[in-house]
């Protein structure tokens, strides 16, 4: 009997031209371009184009792409109605899952090919998921949903649609950086679920719905929220050492540390630390940044572990005014372009994913009539 590839760890399931990760040296590249360069110079729209099309857009291509996204950013009254019908204490990630499933529920027109419909849904879902999440956040607080501002891009609109205030240049840039860093990370569980789904030639909406359903699990998504909860639980800098000591003594993990692939450091965490540092200077959320830095040093001293993307993402998102329980869905709002890039790649060279199990249940037995069973 062949070996069981539990969790498929270390198993190479195919080729991909999207994202390169060198876990040993902490390198992450989208389509060959280092994440550090992108974070400094690019935008989420541009990175999305890069991930989907394999190269950076020209000026004309970028403005057309941004316009396409902008046109799809508003929600139909029917989607808003669904958001309003859900209980106000719903988990935002479950709401996002329901809304994406709903948006994907409408059959394509007879005149539209499978490929065209997928392309339309890609733009529609990538653009509107952020609107779904920010709109639900308003609805649950009893506020009136807002219409996206066509003069603002992906990042600024998300912040605007929650609060009704146009974000400062600094806020917009900080959030845009998070968006780019979250955009893709190769074949993680949610992306994999999306690819398995469309390997049946299910539509792109189905693939994205699967991915978001998979991200809802605590072993995959939601760490940014748990980091923020941890910071609040610790409360102040003088309690850090005791907290970390107690957690480690109890055999628990410190939230936001370590990564299955990055053995030394997560390059995204370095970038976000700088972003969080700049953003919290002279603000009341500086406290959380200072605490985070101390935790980082102390965990390094005790465990030789470095923070991952979620650690400083939590501090940054908090400084941007994003409530804790919305943080996991922020991941989804931006990873969606990575899911879609991998889904397109799966379609382009498809083979149904149909692995096997090893049966370890009882040997053959025969049916015993109910009356003779004890």
């Amino acid at each position, binding site marked *: 009997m062949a070996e069981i*590839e539990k969790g*498929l760890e270390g198993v*190479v399931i195919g080729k991909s031209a999207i994202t390169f990760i060198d876990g040993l040296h902490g390198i992450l590249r989208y389509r060959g371009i280092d994440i550090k360069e992108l974070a400094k110079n690019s935008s989420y729209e541009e990175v999305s184009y890069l991930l989907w099309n394999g190269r950076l857009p020209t000026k004309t291509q970028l403005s057309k792409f941004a316009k396409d996204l902008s046109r799809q950013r508003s929600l139909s009254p029917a989607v808003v109605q669904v958001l309003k019908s859900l209980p106000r204490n719903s988990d935002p990630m479950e*709401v996002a899952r329901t809304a994406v499933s709903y948006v994907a529920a409408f*059959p394509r027109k007879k005149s539209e090919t499978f490929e065209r419909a997928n392309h339309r849904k890609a733009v529609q879902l990538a653009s509107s998921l952020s609107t779904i999440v920010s709109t639900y956040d308003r609805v649950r607080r009893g506020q009136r949903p807002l219409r996206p501002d066509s003069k603002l891009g992906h990042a600024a609109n998300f912040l605007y649609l929650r609060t009704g205030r146009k974000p400062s240049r600094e806020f917009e840039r900080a959030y845009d950086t998070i968006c780019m860093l979250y955009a893709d990370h190769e074949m993680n569980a949610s992306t994999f*679920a999306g690819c398995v789904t469309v390997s049946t030639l299910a539509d792109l909406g189905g693939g994205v719905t699967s991915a978001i359903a998979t991200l809802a699990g605590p072993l995959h998504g939601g760490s940014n929220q748990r980091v923020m909860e941890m910071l609040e639980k610790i409360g102040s800098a003088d309690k850090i050492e005791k907290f970390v000591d107690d957690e480690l003594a109890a055999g628990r993990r410190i939230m936001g540390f370590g990564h299955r692939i990055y053995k030394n450091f997560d390059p995204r965490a370095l970038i976000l630390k700088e972003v969080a540092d700049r953003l919290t200077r002279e603000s009341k959320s500086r406290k959380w940044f200072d605490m985070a830095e101390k935790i980082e040093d102390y965990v390094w001293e005790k465990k030789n572990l470095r923070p991952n993307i979620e650690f400083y993402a939590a501090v940054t998102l908090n400084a941007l005014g994003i409530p804790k329980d919305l943080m996991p869905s922020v991941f989804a709002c931006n990873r969606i372009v990575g899911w879609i890039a991998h889904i397109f790649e799966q379609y382009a060279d498809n083979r149904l994913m149909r692995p096997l199990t090893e049966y370890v*249940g009882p040997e053959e037995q025969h049916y015993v009539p109910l009356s003779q069973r004890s």
Partner: protein
Amino acid sequence: MWVPKGLEGVIVASTELTKIDGQAGRLIYRGYDATELAGNVPYEAVAHLLWLGGLPAEAELLQLREKLGRSRALPVVVEDFLHSVAKVAEPLSVLQTSVSILGGLDSTKSASTVNASIALTARMPTIVASFNRFRHNASPLQPRADLSHAANYLYMLTGKEPRPEHVRALDSYFTLLADHGLGASTFVARVAASTLTDVYSAVVAAISALKGPLHGGAPIYVWEMLQSIGRPESAREWLRECLAKGDRIMGFGHRVYRTEDPRSKVLKRLAKELVKPDLFHLASTVESEARELLREDHPNRVIDTNVEFYSSLVLDAVGIPPELFTCTFACARSVGWTAHIVEQRKDNRLFRPESEYKGPADLDLHGLQKTEA
């Protein structure tokens, strides 16, 4: 480590649920031959077997029946949703979205995965039936706790007391389709569950995969093929043209079975009992012509009927409209999906494979290859 594309032949988990012997054409649930269970034990007993590990004693069966029976009604939010989309949306997506809404409403889902599985399995047929009634301008019927899982589904679809032979046939269909190892949808459910997401979320993911035409169990395509062929005399020519165009013949071939799908035999027998002789004659003619043509085309490979072929006839005969075939399959498979989710959570390891990067190496922002410094 490199593996074949599509993970073909790769073992990704051990399971106590289902054994498929592709060479001999056998399907075994926890040691019991599925074709022996079908029709001999009620679907609820098979659900008990898959969820809890053994065929139930009488009291246990009653208890599960009762639990399913009282869990069938839908929350108002879901009913309103079904009402609002009935005329415009596609049935399987509506089922999926409804399951997603149900998940958000079930505050006890994390307490017991098995209980959440029971609640979800109980409600899926209600969702499909209510959706169908809204679609036809009728109001949904209240589920009946006195009826079996299969009987209640038929009752809620039609509003009539279902005929015993229809109930028996649908019950057998449910049993035969309850589980089938790691079909793509079940695999997706396990991948999702490996993040410790709840049962509803994992089933939402599974339903997505069911939408694809390469996933088995979608007998609507067979149904459309039979409608299009129309008469037994046209079968050979129709099938020849189909193959000449490079299209697949629907209801034939399976990644795992190298012989006749064992479920197909039972379904053929049921179809013969239930459907009009003309229709059965058409189907069996198409079956034998297709088998012959496929043997000519692929002399070294056995391509035989799969579960979809006669499913279409059986489902139609018991009164399920073709556009609900795939949803009905989902209702049957919910037991298998959820049993796999329970199993995944028991001995979990996050699914996180790798892909080999074959794109450009280090580029600068102008897209130019960087030179070694």
